[in-house]
């Protein structure tokens, strides 16, 4: 490892202040971790960085990483805000399954010739997103008004939501052919897959929403000290309901992306364990599970780190049984790299050696 260029990079990045988006120490080390992983991937697979144009579509590992990360990035947006309020949302994976099940069941009615307006593709997408919003609203209600601990409140939906999704499709994994709905997951604009645009749009939109309004500040305030926020006249319940609802909406979009990708809804496995990756990414992105300061772009960076690692595993010739061990080691290494305490520990170690 050569700390020199990274430190310089750090100084350069520190100069950049992109509207509320300040590069802290952590961000620099996250970028460093991503770059290292990408370089390792390049060493494993010589054409890792190559990108080709096939049938008007860019093809290559880097595009695969972005495309593959999109669902989790969407989840991480909502998850970041939830975690910033000192909450957690375990139900995002099942909300993905519910939204995709709703969308596919409705769109198949449309394909079968049903003429009512609520079977129109555009409306179907809205309904699916609304389903996600309702799930989020429910979580928010349990957390904010019934005072149920977030992990348990969302665990309820984690368990029963899977059942609801399965009930909607009657246990089947229905496929569909509608191209409008499929576009969300596999459309291409200017060679780039549509989910990447969707992620960017959501990242920017939500960042604007929270930073150009007071919402971001109020979220952080509630997350850091709910009592003092209450004393300052903040309606923390409403803030919480909002973030869980937004998380539900993001999860629904992620569900549509996943469904569109393979033109089918899988109520059994869609989004399974996705909540863990989303949480992991948020934490790698520097948002504390104890609530407080957050940065959506850094969370997305966290997702890219995880996805690059996964893609690296895909292109490596390692047997899949080793995947988890590699993942554990890399995740730990990334976190240690970000830890000030660990770096000064290393420094002391080297000084003693020298």
């Amino acid at each position: 490892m050569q700390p020199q260029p990274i430190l310089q990079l750090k100084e350069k990045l520190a100069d950049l202040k992109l509207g509320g988006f300040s590069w802290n120490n952590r961000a620099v080390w996250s970028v460093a971790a991503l770059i290292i992983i990408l370089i390792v991937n390049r060493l494993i697979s010589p054409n890792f960085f190559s990108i080709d144009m096939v049938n008007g579509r860019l093809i290559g590992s880097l595009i695969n990483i972005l495309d593959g990360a999109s669902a989790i990035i969407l989840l991480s947006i909502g998850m970041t805000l939830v975690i910033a309020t000192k909450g957690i949302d375990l139900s995002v994976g099942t909300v993905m399954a519910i939204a995709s099940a709703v969308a596919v069941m409705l769109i198949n009615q449309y394909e079968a010739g049903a003429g009512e307006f609520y079977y129109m593709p555009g409306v179907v997408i809205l309904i699916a997103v609304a389903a996600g919003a309702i799930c989020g609203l429910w979580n928010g209600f349990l957390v904010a008004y019934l005072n149920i601990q977030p992990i348990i409140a969302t665990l309820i939906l984690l368990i029963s939501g899977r059942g609801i999704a399965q009930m909607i499709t009657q246990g089947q994994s229905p496929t569909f052919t509608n191209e409008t709905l499929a576009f969300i997951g596999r459309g291409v604009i200017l060679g780039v897959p549509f989910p990447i645009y969707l992620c960017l749009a959501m990242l920017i939109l939500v960042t604007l929403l929270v930073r150009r309004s007071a919402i971001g500040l109020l979220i952080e305030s509630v997350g850091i000290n709910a009592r003092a926020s209450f004393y300052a006249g903040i309606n923390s319940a409403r803030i919480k309901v909002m973030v869980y609802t937004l998380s539900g909406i993001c999860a629904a979009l992620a569900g549509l992306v996943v469904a569109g990708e393979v033109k089918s809804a899988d109520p059994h496995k869609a989004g399974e364990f996705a909540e863990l990756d989303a949480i992991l990414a948020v934490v790698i992105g520097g948002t504390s599970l104890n609530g407080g300061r957050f940065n959506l772009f850094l969370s997305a960076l966290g997702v890219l780190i995880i996805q690059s690692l996964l893609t690296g595993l895909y292109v490596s010739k390692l047997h899949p049984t080793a995947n988890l061990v590699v993942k554990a080691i890399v995740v730990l290494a990334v976190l240690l790299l970000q830890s000030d305490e660990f770096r000064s520990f290393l420094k002391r170690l080297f000084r003693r050696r020298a």
Partner: protein
Amino acid sequence: MRNNEQAQIPLIETRGLTKTFAATPALSEVDFTLYSGEVHALLGENGAGKSTLIKLLTGVHKRDAGVILLEGKEIEPRSPRHCQELGISAVYQEINLIPTLSVAENIFLGRQPMRRGLVDMKTANRKAYELLKAFDIDIDVTRDLSAYSIAIQQIVAIVRGVDLSAKVLILDEPTSSLDRHEVETLFSVIRSLKERGIGILLITHFLDQVYEISDRITVLRNGIKVGEHLTSELPRIQLISEMLGKALTEELAVQKSGISSNGLDREPFLRVHGFARRGMMQPFDLEVRKGEIVGLAGLLGSGRTEIAHLIFGIKHSEQGEAYVNGQAANLSSPQKAVQYGFGLCPEDRKEDGIIADLSVRANIILALQAKLGWFEHLTPKKQEQLAEEMISALRIVTTDMEKPVKELSGGNQQKVILARWLVSNPEFLILDEPTRGIDVGAHAEIINIVKRLAQEGKAMLVISSELPEIVDYSDRVMVLRDKQVIAELEGDQISEAMIMQTIAER
């Protein structure tokens, strides 16, 4: 006796003690000595570095440079635990106990009495009860600490510290929430510890108390030691100018101006009738006019904070009605109270006041922003401007406004909360112990601000354990006892003696 002390090896000695936080030099090259059997007062403005010195002594922070000697031997304080083992116990400025443990467990944390290898809570409870009894506090020690008021918590912390002290007892603003009676009890305890040869390091902003109890004084300013004196040889005026680095000017001195009797004929801004809550507060009536300062006086636990909470909607009143400007008002939550133009500076600034990880700027504009709602966003520029104004108006000591508020000294945190409410431009301000932990200079400033606000036509409700303060600025004083308003004093009736007498009457 004094010569005796000089000849002795100091109990604690520091040489060249230095500490810098990020870019803030908090302490530079401080030499300090504490002898056994003395009470040594450490004085200085808010942010002078007093708490930092203590945290270096007890191993909470690592010092950058300097040596610490205990009884002539160099020590390396690793952690508060390590220091306790060395015989140094400390009561820190912010009550740093465990709210979810019982009172007794807090007192005996880490040194619980054991019986046959088991923690013996029965004995712990009995002993804790007795220790508190010595302070005239008769409470259920098996209840959670958080069930009790900040004052009780402070006494619990002191009791723990006193019981732990083997050689050195450090008290960082122990009396900030205590009323006169508790302070006297504490001082008698300190005197007996002194006789046992224990060295006591005391930090306080109450100069009366300094002269009452201390033997020697060390003054810090901006992290530098500016003086060390025998208390008996240091005139008060000189002490103040040493602390502030300038003479206490007229402007800063508390104006003994006669209170404007102007308010009394005006329409009441707030009228509360029959508010009450079971187990918390007996029914009470309250009127506050614009431009009027109403003081709440009473002993610890008499229900002053409860009144503030009921009016501000933190606790829901179970009965009665409220009128703001003559209109029926719903005061069921702080959000609503804020919309009516209320503001509250809570007594527990750490739990109820500051948002520790947010910047000074964010903390200052928070209440205004909450009042404006989600989408009426204060632009960064506007925020900076407001924060700037407040920082200079209240003389908040901070390197810059983006510093997390938790890194400010205790007194400056208190000012930030006051600033938060001033920025929101309230019509009615409730201040619960607003001068807690505030230095002499700032103390006067805050009292002047209170008065100025009243003159600007704001309605004020002020709670303070310092009677002279209450007497000084109040137009009316409500006296409480046992969760009940027992008297209302006006005009000439307002005097310390009268208040004390009212409280004592049975």
